[in-house]
Structures are given as structure tokens and as C-alpha cells.
């Protein structure tokens, strides 16, 4: 908008105001009518759809979905689109680049669109962008609502090679009960934040770490960790075992649980399929 347009707008608006009505009561009454309807809707929904509580953190319940509130579904859904982690669609697109571009565009809208025209019928570009953004978010939200594969429920998963009562069976339980499946997929069950672990046992990991293990586990000693020892170190301190790892540490299990979990992981895809 150039100076002239700005002056024209100001004059026109001053005229509109002069011919207008006082804020009180004309605008105030409308505002309150709508606010009362909204309050009634909120109270009605609270009575009709009582809010519940899910299972507590670290409970042994096997089915839960680590889902955010519905208004973050579009972000989580975007994460799935970029999960391939290839050079063109890295995860960082979904976690950082796209959300920040959207945020900057949102903040900068009035400085990008500086034309004087205000009628939406004469702003086809703005209208198309608005509709595109709205439809995109609605679609992602809908996908996140309906398409999310339930995570957890993995206690029902059966692996050949795991006999009830064995260390590996106990390890599988530790794995399921600690929410590992909220980020990792095993045999088609689980989230996609971390790598798929179905065949993780086929990989060879090794790390040198000279510090003390946060929770000492009998038989696991540094400074070189390989095999099950690496899994113990990695679970307790991911960045110690894999520098730069984005996984949270699990430092509150018992030594036996660490050992069992490591046995389970180390055999995934080799002994336990």
C-alpha cells in the first residue's frame, strides 16, 4: 500500500466511523451473545462427553496410543510423511523446516500482502492460499485422527524362538511396558519416530565409553561395549552409545530388566523372529 492508498483508507475509515454506531451497546451485545453460546457449548460438551483418564505412565497396560491433542495431529502426521529420511525428505523437514516456514509466513502475512484491495472476491491468490492451507491442515488432522496405527498392544506379538518364562520373554515385556513402541516399530506395531527394530539384532553395534554406567548391570563392563552390553549402555544413555542419538534415556529400570531387554533386542531378527 502506498502513501496515497493509506491516506485514502484512513479517510474512508474515518467516514465509516462517523456514520457508525457506538461500540456500547451495539458491538458488546453481539460479542456477549456469541460468548454465551460458546460457554453453553463448552458446558454441554463437558456433561455429554465426560473427560476420562488413560492408564498411568509405566503401567503394564498394553494398548495405548501416544497421541498428542487433536490440534497437533497435523504436525505428527507431517512427521509420517517425511519419515523416509532420504536426502530429499529428511525428518528435519517435518520437525523443523516446514513448521518454522509456516510460522514465519503467518507472522509476516501483513507485510507480504500489501495490496490495498480488501474484498476477498478480488483477491484470488490470497483466497487460494487460504483455502489450500486450511484444506491441508484439515486433511492432515483427519489423517492423524483416523490413520494412526495404534501403538502398543505389542504384548500380543509372538516371536518364534521366545519361550514363555525365558529372559527374552521378560525382555519383550520390558520393551512393551516402557513405551519403546511409541517410537519404534516391531513387526508392524509401533510408532515411526525411531528406526524400525524388527531386525535390529542383525546389526553389530559397538561403542567405547569410559564413564560409569548409570545403573550397573552384572557382567556388563566398559570401556568397550558390544552385543548385549551395547544395548544396556544404549538404553541407559543413548548418546553414550551413539553420539548424537535423539532417543531419550531410560535410566530407571532394574539391572535384571536391562539384561533381559538387551537379550531380547540382541536377538531380534536373528534368534527371535
Amino acid at each position: 500500500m502506498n502513501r496515497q492508498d493509506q491516506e485514502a483508507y484512513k479517510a474512508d475509515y474515518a467516514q465509516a466511523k462517523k456514520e457508525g454506531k457506538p461500540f456500547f451497546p451495539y458491538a458488546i451485545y453481539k460479542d456477549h451473545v456469541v460468548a454465551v453460546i460458546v460457554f453453553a457449548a463448552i458446558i454441554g460438551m463437558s456433561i455429554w462427553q465426560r473427560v476420562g483418564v488413560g492408564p498411568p505412565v509405566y503401567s503394564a497396560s498394553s494398548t495405548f496410543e501416544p497421541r498428542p491433542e487433536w490440534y497437533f495431529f497435523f504436525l505428527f502426521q507431517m512427521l509420517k510423511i517425511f519419515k523416509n529420511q532420504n536426502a530429499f525428505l529428511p525428518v528435519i523437514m517435518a520437525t523443523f523446516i516446514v513448521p518454522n516456514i509456516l510460522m514465519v509466513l503467518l507472522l509476516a502475512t501483513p507485510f507480504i500482502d500489501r495490496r490495498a484491495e480488501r474484498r476477498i472476491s478480488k483477491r484470488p491468490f490470497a483466497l487460494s492460499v487460504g483455502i489450500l492451507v486450511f484444506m491441508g491442515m484439515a486433511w492432515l488432522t483427519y489423517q492423524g485422527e483416523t490413520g494412526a496405527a495404534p501403538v502398543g498392544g505389542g504384548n500380543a506379538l509372538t516371536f518364534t524362538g521366545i519361550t514363555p518364562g525365558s529372559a527374552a520373554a521378560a525382555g519383550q515385556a520390558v520393551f512393551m511396558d516402557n513405551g519403546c513402541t511409541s517410537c519404534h516399530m516391531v513387526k508392524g506395531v509401533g510408532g515411526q519416530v525411531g528406526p524400525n527394530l524388527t531386525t535390529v539384532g542383525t546389526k553389530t553395534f559397538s561403542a567405547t565409553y569410559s564413564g560409569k554406567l548409570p545403573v550397573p548391570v552384572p557382567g556388563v563392563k566398559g570401556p568397550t561395549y558390544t552385543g548385549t552390553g551395547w544395548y544396556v549402555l544404549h538404553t541407559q544413555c543413548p548418546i553414550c552409545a551413539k553420539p548424537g542419538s535423539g532417543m531419550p534415556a531410560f535410566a530407571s529400570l532394574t539391572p535384571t530388566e536391562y539384561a533381559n531387554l538387551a537379550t531380547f533386542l540382541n536377538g531380534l531378527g536373528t534368534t527371535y523372529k
Partner: protein
Amino acid sequence: MSTSNIGPKGPVTKTGEVVIDHVDHRTGAKTGIGWFLNRNIPGETSWFQTLGFAAMAVFGLQAVTGIVLAMYYKPEPTQAYASIQDITNHVTWGWLVRGMHKWGASAMIILVFLHMARVFIFGSYKYPRELTWVTGAILLIMVMFMGLTGYLLVWDQRAYWATVVAMNITASAPVIGPYIADVLRAGPTFNAHTLSRFYAIHMLVIPGGMATFIGLHLFLVSKLGISEPPWSKRATRARRAEEAAARAAARDRRPQGRREVSVDPAPQTLNVEAGQ
């Protein structure tokens, strides 16, 4: 008013007037409130222009229900879950207050997005209301963060893991990501202090920021005046009159008897030269 003015004023009325005058004399409150309420707004405003107020009203509702919840909630990893269950199942009206807070959060998100959509469609973010939009966008981001931090407080499986994932995503951002995540988590991993930190952010830090920005937002809205819907009858009339005046002026500049096309050379010659 006029009928009650006859006869001496009662002592209560007199005291009231004295107090009001005292305050007004020092603060100008009467003038200010009078200006706020009696200032003119354009004659035709749309019902869609009530959505901002509705969002603000729900913010107030969230504050009230949030205060009630804070009286029973315990931000301790070992007690949080039990205290939420207590509120839901035992505290009188607790289920209702919690329900209103939860549904209110969703309502607020919806209202803020609808409000933003109406501002966008009306072109209300244009001159001189650019900064109103910017303060609004910051409010939108803060509302989203309220949702993120509040969700964890229930301390159930799905909220917990969803928030762990969200924090990992934060930490994966380049350069400052890890630092922001550390500040939010109160350390490099989720720990016993994470919950109380989220609690403090949810009920003190962001609401304070939001109150400030709602204040700024409202100040700008009342200072600049609410925009007039672009298709209002008055605006259309004004536009038509302007166009008619422009046509009339063009006609007046024309020598008698000439056809319009050949005389008003400016746009056409310009087009031919610049275009080809």
C-alpha cells in the same frame, strides 16, 4: 436518570460519587472507560467479528477453571495421576471443572483459528492493522504451547509418551533445539522435575505472556478501530460514488462531441508502449 435527580441525594449516592470522582481525578478512568465504550465503530459489523471476543472470554474461563484445578492438582510425578483421578471422581463438581477446562482448550483453538480466518478473509490485517495481526499470531503460538504443556499434566501413558516425542522433536532442531529441549525438560532427559516445570510454564509463564499480548492486541484493536467489512453497504456506496466521480471528471476533461476512447490517452498509449 432525570427523574431521580430531583430532591437531595442520599448519603450512599453521595459517597459513591465522591469515591468515583476521587479515582477519576487521579486516573482518568471515567474518561478512559467512557472513550472505550462510547467510541464509534462502523455501522455494519459482521457476526464473524465477535469471534475474537469469544476467544478472549474462553481465555477467562480457562483461567477460572484452571485456578480451581490448581487447588487440587499435585505436580509431582508420584501424585499427579492420582490427583487427576481424585478431581475427576471425588471432588464435588471436579469432573465438570476439568471437563470445562479440557473442552475449553479445544474451543479456544477452534475459535482462534476461526477468528484468524475471518481476519484473513476480511483483509483486516492490512494497513493500519499489521501489528494487530502480529500480536495475534504470537497469541496463536502461545495457545498451542498451552495445549502442549497442559496435556502432560494428566501424566497418563499417552500424554507422557506423546510429550516425550514432542520434546525429542524439539531437541532435533538445529543449533538451539537441544538447549530449548533441556530447558523445557529440566535436563537432558525426562525426569522428576519435568512435570513441575511444565506445570509452572502452563500456569504461570504462558498465561502471563498471553495476558500481556491480549492487552496489546486489544489496545491496538480499540485504538485503530474495528475494520469495516469490505462489502458493507456504506463501503460499496462510497466506492460507487468514487467511481462515478472519476467517470464524471474524465467526461469533463473531454472536448465536446469527442468519443471517450480517443481522448483519454494516458492509459492506452502507456499500455501500447510498455506492453510491446
